């Protein structure tokens, strides 16, 4: 027994960032799942469109204004989001608190814009399958906006009150990664809902 070699890990770090951390893989798993949900929902849109002679069915395409504002807003929100991520990885608590707060402001703005997007769709989920899938796509994304927003608020409160340890900075970094997913997932949805009916009538 005592002749056995030992691997002494006592000085190893007790947490790590990015793909080294377990949480990163958990977040990636979430992204894979939710990304698949978005992808399949988009396929459903194109499938129903292929079956129908008339698309959009019985209504004009969605107005471009609020959807485009949303796209711009989300892309810009990537900036404070990225600063928050870097601040977390640098373990700079003051900068984390500031940039996560800015992200929250952007989140509120996005949710407000989203409220205006719904009526601008020019259809209703009950009217026909086109209305149903367009509402579904938008609502799937809204659910992600909302839950990530709540996540971020809770995280900010924790950054202000504690108790904190090194792992919490990893949480800041992961939270930022998930926000990037919410932003990037929006792009094909924006393209499909707003641009496809106009470019390929």
């Amino acid at each position, binding site marked *: 027994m005592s002749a056995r*070699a030992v691997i002494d890990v006592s000085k190893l770090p007790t947490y790590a960032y990015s793909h080294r951390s*377990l949480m990163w893989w958990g977040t990636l798993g979430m992204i894979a799942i939710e990304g698949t949900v978005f992808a*399949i929902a988009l396929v459903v849109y194109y499938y129903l469109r292929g079956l129908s002679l008339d698309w959009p069915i019985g209504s004009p395409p969605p107005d471009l204004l609020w959807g485009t504002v949303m796209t711009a807003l989300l892309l810009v929100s990537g900036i404070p989001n990225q600063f928050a991520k870097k601040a977390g990885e640098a373990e700079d608590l003051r900068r984390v608190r500031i940039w996560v707060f800015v992200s929250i402001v952007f989140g509120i703005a996005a949710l407000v814009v989203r409220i205006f997007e719904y009526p601008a769709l020019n259809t209703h*989920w009950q009217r026909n399958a086109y209305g149903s899938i367009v*509402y579904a796509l938008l609502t799937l994304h809204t659910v992600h906006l909302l839950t990530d927003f709540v996540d971020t608020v809770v995280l900010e409160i924790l950054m202000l009150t504690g108790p904190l340890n090194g792992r919490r900075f990893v949480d800041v970094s992961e939270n930022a990664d998930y926000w990037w997913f919410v932003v990037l997932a929006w792009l094909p949805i924006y393209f499909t809902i707003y641009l496809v009916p106009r470019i390929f009538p």
Partner: protein
Amino acid sequence: MSRIDDTWADKPGLVGWLSTVDHKRIGIRFVVTTLAFFVFAGLLAAVMRVQLARPDNHVVGPDTYNQLFSVHGSMMMFLFAVPVMEAIALYLVPLMVGTRNVAFPRLNAYSYWLLLFGGLMLIFVFVIDSAPDAGWFNYVPLSGPEFGPGKRSDFWAQLITFTEVSGLIGAVNIITTVFKLRAPGMTLARLPLFVWAMLATAFMILFAMPSVMLASTFLITDRLVTTQFFNPAEGGDVLLWQHLFWFFGHPEVYFIFVPALGVISQILPTFARRRIVGYVAMVVALVTIAFLSFGLWVHHMFATGLPPLGMSFFTAASIMIALPTGLQIFCWIATLATGEKVRFAAPFLFIIGFFFIFIIGGLTGVMLGSSTLDSQLHDSYFVVAHLHYVLIGGAVFPLFGGFYYWFPKVTGRRLSERAGRWNFWLFFIGFNVAFFPMHILGLEGMPRRIYTYPAAAGWSGLNLLSTIGAFTVALSVLVFFVNVWRSRRAGELAPDNVWGASGLEWAAPSPPPPYNFERIPAVRSRDPLWEPGFPAAEVVGLPDIVRSTLVTRLHDAEPDHIAILPDASIWPFLAALATTIMFIWSVFTPWGLTWGAIPLTITLIGWFWPKKDETRRTCAVEVKPDAGDARVHQLREALP
């Protein structure tokens, strides 16, 4: 009790039981619960077989019968077959890869409670005569707002939500555990085949389950808030349901079958006392099956009048998946042929049963894969025969073999060999008597899902025979449970490595302590316990005032850092309760989602919010990444 025992101990009593995050306690719970669902669904089948034993029978009417087969199928597939495989994985994988828990212990607990509550919901609605009644795949328009009155179909859709969320969480847990928590030296090329099988399964789950979640959500919204996804009169499509369901549904049968292949790959080499022939081929076969399984789904829709070119493609793909499956069978036979003489203990009997039964199912599967033949066989009892041959032969027999094999590790005692033989033979004979005649009944024109048939059809004799077989199977399951019940307390005591196997799980005590390994062993081959002088090295230095384990690198299994896993927590249980309230409330009104989200959010915050005591201990042992990294570098150079 040493400090590590203190740190990993569960609290006593009911609170401890509700708050445990020990993957073994949760794994056992999962298995027990899924087996309870297995028995319940089996009893429903027994009633169906009584009804079908004679023509023009009046044991149950069509309404009850429709609920019986719908609940039987749904419970077997969603509450037994898939979760039991994830359950044994959640128990075994951390032990097999040499770590102390799964990567996300609290999510593990949460996913168990969700499964339990979803299953209880289904049983409850069955008891009040409001169970799903449109079959386990719940086709629209029969299940839709116009032709599916009441809430039956909504309960089916929510059952999906419960079980899919539970399954997806299990998949993320398995992937992360396998990728990041392996023992030093256990490179991917040295992973046990069961772990490879679970990895492949977990990835399939990740990409397939979203499809059925979307489908069931669309169904609920069609029924509850008048969306038009499946209404052809308003631009919707009835076949959309079938595409979405089967895109998930076909991989789903592989969620059930692939883990069983992994189980066989653990048991068979042990009994041949030889490592598997063609390890790389076996891994390639598993991964190929996982990929191919996504390209077959349309074979469930051959009768719907799709374009012939598409049907030819799916015929070819469906037939070709027999190739990687066959490869596995050939490698197993080769392993037996080049191994020692096998002692036919109970686990191995079930493996032999697999060969005799599953191969028939696989061959009838090739027949059903031909779109031309399928036009006769689809939706007849031939399919009922096929699916039971592959599910029971291909998954349940290896599963039972697994129970007999790993029971000594889980409990420290062996199951009775004599009872095991009775269990096996009653099951084997009963199964074939019950299901083989169904091939013939299908060819004689008996459709699926009929609550009765006329005497003039000429199906009476074979149906009676089938019923006799079914009751024999029931008897064999009873023998199994009696065996388990008695062996738990009075079974023959088993040493740690009772079968002389090679996997790491056999290095842990039987039963293992909560932390599995006090000193995680390093590994130098695919068959660690067969290495001379095992273990070549052991991990020391993991802090024992927190629940720590070692994180290693994905590509080479070198030590990377220490993960501090969470202590026991009541929040997963509470969050599961809140989730259940939200899910069931939203069966009745969409506002259930909005209002139900509030308690759920509160429990999730409680879950996420760090506990002061845990934080204090974590900070006491904290080593920051930049400070520690130099140590990682030095450590790697020092590895033997």
